């Protein structure tokens, strides 16, 4: 059977907050799901299968939460799959859901991703001391900071670029009512003045710790025909690589480059810088914007920071990046990748509200996870793809 067209026909997300003490994990997921179903004008009865994603179980201390979430996700009597690829899980979960439609197995698939960081402490969960080794590791920031330093050295980027990204994304977040951080006073200067946490990463260059969920309804062409402005899925790609290997490039990982090359080829895109109208990429620490601009092929190696510095990635630039405020403004970890995919869909549907970019025809959603070793990305478009 040839590949079937698939589209995002419903998008839902929670208002991301530091603590959602009023809802359980199930309730949090349902807020996003109910909004996605309402947006799609569908009910649970219309859904054929459910795909759920979240980051490591240690983050909430609930082993296999999909077991207890089954009825909340409307999965009684239906297939329920759980996906896990660390921080990229929201993206890979959406891709698994899309593949169930593209393969012709199901017509309408509900997918949801979540994290309730307030139930635990991600930094603790990522830094459990292992016997026999040196206990110098210090959470995600401690992991990525040396690689950010490597990027700065390799690219000779000016030291304020990270602050440019952080200030831009925090200002963009003011246009997104769902965004966790709403810090209107954030400027390049205020970011540079914030505390150095994991040198060279400052406090304001890091993502917050959020409770939140995101859900999508992904459907076949027949269903999409009855929906206003579906976001057609033009291409998807996932790639992985070892966490550590001799001479592994942690600044510009091979798996990310390979995934992007395959993605652009599938989507028929030869010049992503010109042909992509909006980008939602996974930037948990501000310097990852220029790093991923290069990894994805929007800029040559060592040149990504120049796009950031010159305002190309601002909402008013010709390659707007993270108009939603991005991971730097909301980080419910398991949901963060799906939020990138969802925001790309909102952009091509013309439904991004105040952070809508005019005339978006094709947008990129991107996520990465683990030690920069899992990559998931998709291109969605306003036009039905020629498959």
């Amino acid at each position, binding site marked *: 059977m040839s590949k079937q067209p698939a589209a995002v026909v419903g998008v839902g997300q929670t208002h991301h907050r530091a603590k959602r003490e009023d809802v359980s994990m199930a309730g949090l997921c349902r807020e996003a799901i109910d909004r996605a179903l309402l947006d799609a004008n569908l009910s649970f009865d219309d859904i054929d299968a459910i795909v759920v994603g979240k980051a490591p179980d240690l983050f*909430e201390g609930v082993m296999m939460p999909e077991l207890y979430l089954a009825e909340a996700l*409307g999965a009684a009597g239906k297939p329920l799959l759980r996906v896990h690829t660390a921080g990229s899980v929201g993206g890979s979960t959406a891709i698994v859901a899309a593949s169930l439609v593209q393969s012709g197995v199901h017509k309408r698939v509900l997918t949801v991703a979540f994290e309730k960081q307030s139930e635990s402490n991600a930094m603790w969960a990522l830094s459990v*001391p292992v016997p026999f080794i040196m206990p110098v590791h210090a959470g995600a920031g401690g992991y990525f900071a040396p690689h950010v330093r490597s990027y700065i050295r390799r690219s000779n980027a000016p030291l304020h670029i990270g602050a440019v990204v952080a200030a831009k994304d925090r200002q963009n977040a003011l246009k997104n009512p769902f965004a966790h951080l709403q810090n209107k006073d954030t400027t390049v200067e205020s970011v540079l003045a914030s505390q150095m946490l994991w040198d060279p990463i400052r406090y304001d260059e890091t993502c917050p710790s959020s409770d939140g969920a995101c859900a999508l309804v992904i459907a076949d062409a027949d269903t999409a025909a009855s929906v206003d402005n579906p976001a057609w899925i033009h291409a998807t790609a996932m790639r992985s690589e070892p966490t550590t290997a001799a001479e592994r490039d942690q600044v510009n990982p091979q798996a990310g480059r390979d995934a992007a090359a395959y993605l652009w080829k599938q989507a028929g895109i030869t010049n992503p810088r010109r042909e992509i109208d909006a980008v939602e990429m996974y930037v948990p620490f501000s310097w990852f914007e220029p790093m991923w601009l290069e990894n994805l092929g929007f800029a040559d190696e060592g040149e990504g920071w120049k796009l950031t510095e010159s305002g190309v990635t601002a909402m008013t630039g010709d390659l707007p990046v993270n108009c939603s405020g991005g991971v730097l403004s909301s980080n419910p970890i398991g949901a963060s990748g799906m939020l990138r995919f969802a925001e790309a869909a909102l952009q091509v549907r013309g439904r991004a509200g105040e952070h809508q970019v005019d005339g978006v025809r094709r947008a990129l959603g991107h996520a990465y996870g683990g030690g920069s070793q899992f990559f998931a990305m998709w291109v969605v478009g306003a036009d039905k793809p020629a498959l």
Partner: protein
Amino acid sequence: MTTSQARTLSAPLRVSFDYTRSVGPTLGAFFAGLRERRLVAGRLADGSVVLPPPEFDPATHEPVTDFVEVGPAGTVQSWTWVPEPVAEQPFDRPFAWALVLLDGATAPFLHALDIPYDDLRVGMRVRARWVNEPVGAITDIACFEKLRDQEDPPRDAAGDPPTHGRLITPVNLDYTYAASPEESAFFRGLEQGRILGQRCPACGKVYVPPRGACPVDGVPTTDEVELPGTGTVTTFCIVNVPFLGQKITPPYVSAYVLLDGADIAFLHLILGIEASEVRMGMRVEAVWRPRDEWGTTVENISHFAPTDEPDADFESYKVHL
């Protein structure tokens, strides 16, 4: 000592955290009921009565909001014997877990029975025994016990009204962490003051610590290579942030050190220089703890400290970034 113990090293690893649960309105009603010594079940659209109440009706998908009190007496539907209880179970002596169909409920509830093995019967009547000071947690029910003939189920006095929808649930996981044979050889080498890596026979890259298999070629790494305690800082992070469970007081420099002759850097601590003076390319050497403190651990190397050598040329380590 068994053969496997001799071959590999292992050590206890305890993962422990007090998780905070936001329970939401439905389970919140259940926990609030426990605090008043009441068993609050949910009535579903099909008429079934379930304890604890599911947050969402599996058939209609709607939130469960119709609450009904059940018990405190019920009937044992099934049981299983726990001959060797583990920590934090309801009893420290052998006991039974049972499925109890509480009066008024249509689905059974799992809890412990304080009933001797020889007295256990399917169909026997039991009732909840409460702890003295319920707090709004499942442990407010100490267990279920025999309900004697003709006895009316007791109505316990209500406690204070519920005030919270959050629970703290400590989770403790006790593992035995086992190092691989190759890692064990590495850690045992450290106990002798030696740093032992392995070379991949396919790509020739030297891994330290050794992996047992090359992550690129997937072939066993068998050739042992002894490495010196000198190397180059490829890149690093200055950790200024304190966090739960942290072993080293910040600020400290966590650096990738590429030992001379190795093809992969590993993380260690840099001391003997101001953090702000640490540089990419800085030449360093291992500073060992006193020999009588050595064990089978990387911590035998206290830290790496700068040498008098000039910094390494960027070209010499840039493929390791």
